[in-house]
């Protein structure tokens, strides 16, 4: 049963090797062992290098997570064929009992621990599920005031990051294995010898840990001349680096205006979890709808959810904000003169009017990646409208305990390196050689540092060049502390021993202090023992509080103090930047919605996850509007050369519906060369053209170069060229899918508030809004007496943030298949977010529809399975029995919702040791040739039923929570027993807005969708004016 720790570690021989060497390696070993060794070798960078050398280009084959396991498939198949020999006789299985069983461990029962995911935009409090002390599922801490149990794609995926087999595993000095002690020793002596710390530099990721900040202050006290630089490419230059952010209270806001603020699509925006929750709460019932305006420079789910969306080029937004400020009567604003189009003027006027009408009940949210003036303007507008203290609070403290001007500091550091002043450069979990602004030429300067050390989870671009490398511990392996967006402090406690003996920044800084050996655990306790410290007031006995904090997951009374009174004068001090020429090409830099700044490049779940809006996976791309595509004579998937200030990079180009013209969005975090087997070589490196003076948008040029890139886009948006006769628009402006889904097939059903008031039953009326009629069947309806599981999904709340999908990955052991497989449509996600772009693709509104198995009562898939591998349970689940499946794929063909996923090849990785620790023990790992699909998390249902049966009671409503439901920050998903009329799901399904997709097929889905109700501003309701036609 229990794996012993030491046999997890697959060691990497550092010596360079040739294929001959490999052959030698393999000559000795035979049989299963042979394949295993091949796989181990194939993972080693040396081997990949060797392959690259001897067969250039074919290395990708080895790196590709799927084809790399070609050998494994051979093995798997041949063993399977052995099964042909008639009997399926199992080999002997060993049992490894404990020597001493841990006190509180009940094998087979999960345990939950509270901790937090320290993230630059604010920590995410967590409750982590462990099996035999292996973290196997991460979810938000349900009791925590900030996120109330919700999470996000990043947080969910940090689990796979922990078990990433490519994490660095040894302290090395110039490639030789060393011990941590040696480093600590040498480092401490060196620093001590400098007396005042001259020439000692630290380059760290943004410090969020109060303890770390305290330790740094101590170091500074000891060595005044030592320098700390913080750099986070996604934070540097934003208002966040200073850390003082307003706290928005969307619960109170009837009108929300986003000035390029993408606060609905991911944890990249500070306070995401809170903001989405409060936004979504107001969307749940039509009588308290809020209204969202979005002015944005690149299409995001926030904009596409908005009632009214205005696409502007990034440089226009400050000016527009200024116009808005002026229009709502902020004093002392002189907006730069600009030729706004009629549409834009109309929008501005209506918006201003609406804002004034909702003074005190509205809020304007500035974008993180906009010119700082926008933040100023937004604050000015908010205070002018008297929103401060009502819909937003101004906090005195910062999430970031050590505010910095990161670019300036980084520049200074580079200058010092070039000047040869740097004796020791210690890099703490940062990767500047990869992601420092191109204009700083960091790599070159790095060479000039006399001694360099790198603390990092991977031997990444920086680690490759640093002399010392220390493997960093994952936050699930280490003690620390962090503050959530609202300031609440969470103690980060380890859930597993460091897999590879990783260290943390705490260790490094502590090594310079009086008690160098002091463990982070003690360091953190010291911080919070000192009750005076950080104005935190911990009453009573420390130990009790400490244990309480660990158990609850946060420290009482550490919430930020927020001031509700408006700033004395609301006028705007800053200066609005001048706009770039209308026809110039703007290039917008944004952290990637999936891999952020590149730190999660090697997390397969995130790489394969289709990005919101574009549904692009495994790559980043140059996103443009259809018109721009036409203007530059391009086609999708063409390769373009982007140039900014003489720096060039090649990128694939794809259309993002609703993207402003003459503007390109590129996402950071791709084009890694040393990310690992998954991330290396995916996408292109946008940092190569990103400079410190224009970090978020710059003007540049774009030109076509030869060849196609081969992007993997999981959903098409074909332009609808059908003539009227066939129900099309004729002009190719719309998306064929959306025209079909919305107007013809009733898959998406919605109404405006007015329409809803006029006709509350709209969702189930009309020709295309078909409903199920239980009486229209030839054979008797099946009775479901006891439990009848069902799901309800609120289309008005879902913001398409993808958290549910990643959560599903973790809960259900879903395999990652690799880019080539995704390209031909074989991705395995059980749950997908269908995105339909309504109206003109140049200015669409989008509908996000989470689509998983509908658990139809008249399931078409079941009837056609020749072996009964998919059947209905007495509780109405559409059960998929993997071990009975022979793989005819007929069920998939006959599934109208196309939610079934087939293991065309051996996708599951049975070999990599660290991934074995990741698996959820309650879900079978599916092998080759087997169909799979959403099971409504049947393993959770069974667990709950067993608990209930033991106590002779019925399963309580809310006792079963599906993985997607648990992760959803908008709580758009509800699961439960629809036979229990009191259950939340039953009530929702009874709602007249609830409808079934494709009801006319009489499949009787158990999943129902609550139709969206929009709250548009009557003055803007007319559809947007025609845009330059997109290319067909």
């Amino acid at each position, binding site marked *: 049963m229990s794996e012993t720790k030491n046999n997890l570690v697959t060691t990497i021989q550092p010596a360079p090797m040739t294929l001959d060497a490999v052959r030698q390696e393999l000559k000795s070993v035979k049989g299963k062992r042979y394949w295993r060794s091949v796989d181990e070798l194939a993972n080693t960078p040396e081997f990949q290098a060797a392959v690259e050398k001897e067969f250039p280009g074919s290395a990708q084959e080895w790196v590709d997570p799927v084809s790399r396991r070609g050998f494994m*498939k*051979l093995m798997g198949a*041949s063993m*399977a*064929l052995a*099964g*042909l020999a008639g009997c399926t006789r199992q080999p002997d299985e060993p049992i490894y009992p404990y020597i001493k069983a841990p006190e509180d461990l009940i094998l087979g029962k999960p345990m939950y621990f509270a901790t937090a995911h320290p993230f630059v935009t604010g920590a995410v409090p967590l409750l982590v599920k462990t099996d035999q002390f292996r973290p196997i599922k991460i979810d938000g801490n349900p009791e925590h005031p900030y996120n109330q149990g919700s999470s996000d794609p990043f947080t969910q995926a940090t689990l796979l990051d922990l078990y990433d087999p490519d994490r660095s595993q040894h302290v090395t000095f110039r490639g030789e294995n060393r011990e941590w002690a040696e480093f600590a020793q040498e480092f401490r002596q060196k620093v001590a010898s400098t007396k005042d710390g001259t020439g000692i530099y630290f380059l760290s990721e943004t410090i969020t840990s109060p303890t770390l900040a305290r330790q740094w202050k101590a170091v500074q006290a000891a060595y005044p001349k030592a320098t700390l630089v913080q750099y986070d490419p996604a934070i540097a230059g934003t208002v966040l680096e200073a850390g003082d952010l307003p706290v928005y209270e969307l619960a109170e806001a009837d009108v929300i205006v986003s000035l390029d603020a993408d606060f609905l699509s991911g944890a990249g925006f500070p306070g995401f979890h809170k903001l989405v929750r409060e936004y979504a709460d107001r969307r749940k019932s039509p009588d308290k709808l809020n209204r969202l305006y979005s002015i944005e420079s690149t299409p995001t789910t926030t904009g596409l959810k908005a009632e009214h969306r205005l696409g502007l080029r990034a440089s226009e937004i400050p000016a527009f904000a200024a116009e808005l400020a002026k229009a709502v009567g902020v004093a002392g604003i002189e907006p730069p003169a600009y030729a706004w189009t009629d549409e834009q003027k109309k929008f501005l006027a209506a918006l201003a009017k609406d804002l004034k009408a909702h003074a005190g009940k509205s809020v304007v949210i500035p974008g993180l990646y906009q010119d700082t003036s926008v933040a100023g303007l937004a604050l000015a507008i908010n205070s002018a409208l008297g929103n401060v203290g009502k819909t937003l609070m101004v906090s005195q403290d910062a999430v970031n305990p050590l505010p910095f001007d990161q670019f300036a500091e980084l520049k200074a550091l580079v200058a010092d390196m070039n000047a040869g002043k740097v004796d020791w450069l210690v890099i703490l979990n940062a990767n500047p050689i990869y992601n420092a602004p191109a204009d700083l030429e960091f790599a070159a300067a790095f060479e000039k540092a006399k001694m360099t050390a790198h603390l990092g989870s991977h031997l990444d671009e920086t680690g490759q060049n640093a002399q010392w490398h220390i493997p960093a511990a994952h936050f699930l392996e280490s003690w620390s502390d962090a503050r959530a967006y609202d300031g609440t402090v969470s103690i980060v406690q380890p859930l597993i021993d460091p897999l590879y003996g990783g260290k943390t920044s705490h260790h490094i800084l502590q090594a310079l202090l009086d008690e160098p050996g002091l463990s982070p655990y003690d360091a953190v306790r010291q911080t919070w023992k000192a009750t005076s410290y950080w104005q935190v007031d911990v009453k009573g006995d420390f130990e009790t509080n400490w244990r309480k904090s660990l158990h609850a997951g946060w420290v009482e009374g550490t919430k930020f103090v927020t001031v509700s009174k408006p700033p004395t004068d609301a006028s705007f001090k800053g200066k609005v930047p001048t706009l770039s020429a209308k026809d110039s090409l703007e290039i917008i830099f944004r952290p990637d919605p999936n891999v952020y700044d590149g730190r999660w490049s090697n997390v397969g779940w995130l790489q394969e996850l289709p990005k919101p809006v574009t549904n692009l996976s495994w790559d980043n791309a140059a996103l443009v509007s259809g018109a721009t595509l036409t203007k530059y004579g391009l086609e999708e998937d063409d390769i373009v050369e982007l140039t900014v200030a003489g720096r060039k990079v090649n990128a694939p180009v794809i259309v993002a519906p609703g993207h402003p013209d003459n503007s390109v969005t590129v996402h950071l975090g791709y084009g890694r060369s040393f990310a690992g087997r998954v991330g290396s070589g995916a996408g292109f490196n946008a940092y190569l053209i990103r400079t410190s003076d224009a970090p978020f948008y710059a003007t540049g040029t774009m030109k076509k170069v030869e060849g196609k890139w081969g992007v993997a886009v999981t*959903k*098409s948006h*074909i332009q609808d060229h059908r003539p009227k006769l*066939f*129900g099309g628009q004729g002009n190719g402006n719309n998306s*064929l*899918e959306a025209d*079909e*889904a919305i107007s*013809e*097939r009733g*898959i998406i059903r919605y109404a405006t508030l007015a329409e809803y008031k006029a006709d509350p039953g709209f969702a189930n009326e009309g020709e295309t809004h078909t409903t199920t009629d239980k009486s229209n069947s030839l054979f008797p309806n099946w009775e479901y007496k006891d439990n009848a599981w069902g799901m309800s999904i609120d289309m008005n709340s879902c913001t398409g943030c993808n958290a549910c999908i990643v959560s599903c990955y973790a809960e259900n052991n879903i395999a990652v298949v690799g880019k080539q*497989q995704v390209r*031909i*449509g*074989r991705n395995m996600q059980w749950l*997908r977010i*269908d995105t*339909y772009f309504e109206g003109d693709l140049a200015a669409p509104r989008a509908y996000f*529809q989470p*689509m998983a198995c509908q658990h139809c009562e008249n399931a*078409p898939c079941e*009837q*056609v*399975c*020749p*072996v*009964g591998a998919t059947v209905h349970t007495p509780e109405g689940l559409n059960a998929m029995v993997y071990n*009975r*499946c*022979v*793989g*005819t*794929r*007929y069920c*998939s*063909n*006959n599934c*109208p*919702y*196309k939610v079934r996923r*087939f*293991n*065309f*090849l051996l996708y599951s990785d049975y070999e990599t040791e660290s991934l074995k620790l990741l698996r959820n023990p309650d879900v079978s790992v599916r092998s*080759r*040739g*087997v*169909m799979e699909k959403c099971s409504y998390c049947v393993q959770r249902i069974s667990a709950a039923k067993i608990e209930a049966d033991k106590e002779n009671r019925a399963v309580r409503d809310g006792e079963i929570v599906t993985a997607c439901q648990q992760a959803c920050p908008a709580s758009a998903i509800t699961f439960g027993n629809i036979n229990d009329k009191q259950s939340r799901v039953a009530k929702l399904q009874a709602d007249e807005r609830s409808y079934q*997709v*494709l009801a006319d*097929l009489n*499949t009787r889905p158990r999943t129902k969708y609550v139709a969206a109700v929009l709250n548009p501003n009557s003055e803007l309701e007319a559809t947007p004016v025609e845009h330059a036609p997109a290319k067909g």
Partner: protein
Amino acid sequence: MATGGLKEDEATRDRRIDAATGEYRVIAPGQTFRSVTEKITRIVLTPDTPLGWFALFGVGGALATMLMVALTWLFLIGTGIWGITQPAAWGFAIINFVWWIGIGHAGTLISAILLLFKQSWRNSINRFAEAMTIFAVVCAGLFPLIHLGRPWLGYWLLPYPSTMDVWPQFRSPLMWDVFAVSTYAIISVVFWYIGMVPDFGTMRDRAESKIAQYFYGLCSLGWRGSVRHWMRYETASLLLAGLATPLVLSVHTVISFDFAVAVLPGWHTTIFPPYFVAGAIYSGFAMVLTLAIPLRKFYHLEALVTERHIDNMGKVMLATGFIVAYGYGMEIFMAWYSASHWEAFMMWNRMFGPMGWAYLVLVTCNLAIPLTTLWSRKLRTSIGYMFFISIVVNTGMWFERFVIVVTSLYRDFLPSSWGTYRATKWDYMTYVGTLGLFMFLFLLFVRFLPMIPMSEIRTMLPGAKITAKTRAEAGD
């Protein structure tokens, strides 16, 4: 040789046309029991095999080997080596399966249905038509097994008392396939073999070499031509024919259920059974021609397989071709008449969607070319043209299955899950491989078994006529 049939001089033409009917004679005049027997047995019993046979046999063998390679890789790596994906989870495998099964049908039709209708002209072609059926079924039968994700568990489709206590699920059309196809295979083989028993007797008695005598002796089961045996034999053949007829109709009907029973627009139609059966016979006769024309030339069997046969098969194709055309027409009509958006969109997508070209090919090959030209007797009896047509129709019918399987799948109900389908080299290798396997088996057949039923030919010879005198005596 496009007009080879026409170039011959009138004299010989006239002799082959029966003055009475104005039709081509079924058998060229001047044949006796012995001459026929000699002609047919010689092909098999000759010690020296023609080089051409070896050449073709080599080709067939090579392709069959390629098939083995493709299958080995398939079993090792998985169905993922094919182009199938989501949403088009069925591809070449199923297309080929339906195509091959369809081809088989002509054989049974000729041997069974035409026998019931006392179409004596069938006698000279039914033996190799049946052989074709069997080998086609062999190729077809391959696909349902190999297209499984876990082929080594294929036996789970058979009802047997397993330790899991679970049984097949009989509501699934795939289960129906299992029984339909296996029955079809078995009955065809039995029918074929029974038909050969008397001829094996002849072979036994004509063979010189001891091995040949033993071999054919065993196969003949000691047939000695007793009239009592003949009478039971006749009854059995008629019964088998009577059974094979509903069987052949049911088999392709069941195959069509694979689609018709599903919910997909483009599959879910009641027209499928008749139009699949017709299509099957259509392509089947095409295949018979593809085989008969080279055969009669190669083995100089013009006397036994005459223009009359070619002509009649042309007529059958014309008829079935029109049933198929009706099927297409009805699909389009229904797309409009049903007022179902699903149907309408499917039809639009089928014709004008990204894969419209496939629909074009099938209309051209199945309707445009054959149905316009097969009216002309001149063309029907032109050997070259009929060979060309046979190829065209086989192609067309393959594309019909492609259109049905793929274009219905790749864009169905939820637009969000639309995808596409592109076959891989492994798909093509497998398909071409089965062609090779078919060729391989068929060549073995013509070399070692009597490819024309002698006993049945004999009944059509003048020598078999009972004199009026005898009848008169029979009277009293």
